[in-house]
């Protein structure tokens, strides 16, 4: 499953999500909105979200650091 994590540089919950995915060996692509400013508009149009982190995994969207949802969707024990 392709995992995309939208982040910004000084967002603490973004670091939580990235640390969690790394700890559990999940490969993901990070899109930092501070360096990809057009991605913010795309994400807003696609999901309605105006906050990070947002994790897109397959057809699923996980907003914020939601450990239970991350575990369930990414099948992490």
């Amino acid at each position: 499953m392709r995992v995309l994590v939208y982040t910004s540089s000084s967002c603490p919950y973004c670091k939580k999500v990235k640390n969690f995915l790394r700890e559990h060996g999940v490969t993901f692509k990070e899109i930092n909105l501070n360096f990809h400013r057009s991605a913010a508009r795309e994400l807003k149009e696609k999901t309605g979200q105006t906050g990070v982190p947002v994790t897109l995994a397959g057809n699923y969207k996980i907003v914020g650091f939601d450990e239970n949802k991350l575990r369930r969707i990414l099948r992490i024990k």
Partner: protein
Amino acid sequence: MQFTLKRKSEETSSEGVKSHFEAVIIGAGPAGLTAAIYLGRSKIDTVIFEKMVPGGYIVSTDWIENYPGFPDGVSGEELGGLFEKQSSKFGVRTENVEVTGVDFEARPMIVETMNGSYTASAIIVATGTKSKKLGVPGEDELIGKGISLCATCDAPFFEGEDIVVVGAGNSGIQESLYLSKFARSIRIIEFLDHPTAERILLDRIKEIGKIELLLSHRVTRFIGDDRLTGVEVEKRDFNQKRILDVKGAFIYVGLVPNAGFLKGSIDMDKEGFIETNQELKSSKEGVFAAGDVRITSLRQVATAIGDGALAAFKVRQYLEGR
């Protein structure tokens, strides 16, 4: 210092397992990390439990100019990272785990975390604060859909948009300056008839031009179904309501303590800030509080640093005097 943190239940089964510490610090913000530096240098066996990321609330602060030693200013993220680097240099490790409960009556005291139970002879609570919400209709539903509590996190979503910032204290003004790099226009809504931010910050918003102060106004509701489309504001005394057409709102109206897990186990004021004496002792023996989470008249990095140093000194005296 080398050790491995494991669940208490594993204590007897694994060599090198550690579940008791002379001192436990809850929270790795400026106060907690400063206490760790002092305790580490005193060779007091200490661990920090932090549920988010080291650095605390400041990591999401764009720029800090009133902390001495950085004449050109420093980002909150960088400063938090430096604090952690310095504390780990003296042997205090930061564990990324949430504390879920405490028993301050037991001896040694018990700290429950998501990873298991630990015991401690002394505890410093340095859990800091988080942003206060306004508590008006529409707010909870639209957080993340136009409303944000963190400008440095979410500013890129508001490129070219008209937005509001609620609160004209230091945080509101400082973050408005950051947001002005993205937004088309910013209106800062302040309930008081004057801004409370430092003069130097207020001078800067005048220079930028696209920031307007709406004094003596309060937000009465946020409007929008799945996205924020407007903010209803009311002018104090006149009961005049009007709607500002904006796509974004950032809230900086104060702080609430991160101390809910301590409710009932320690004396607090009605807002949940911890009561301490001048030596930072709480109502429970062996428990100290430092930084923004305690009752104090100023919450700044500089004051948290002083608190962390004093709390560590008092912990050391307490441990030596037992």
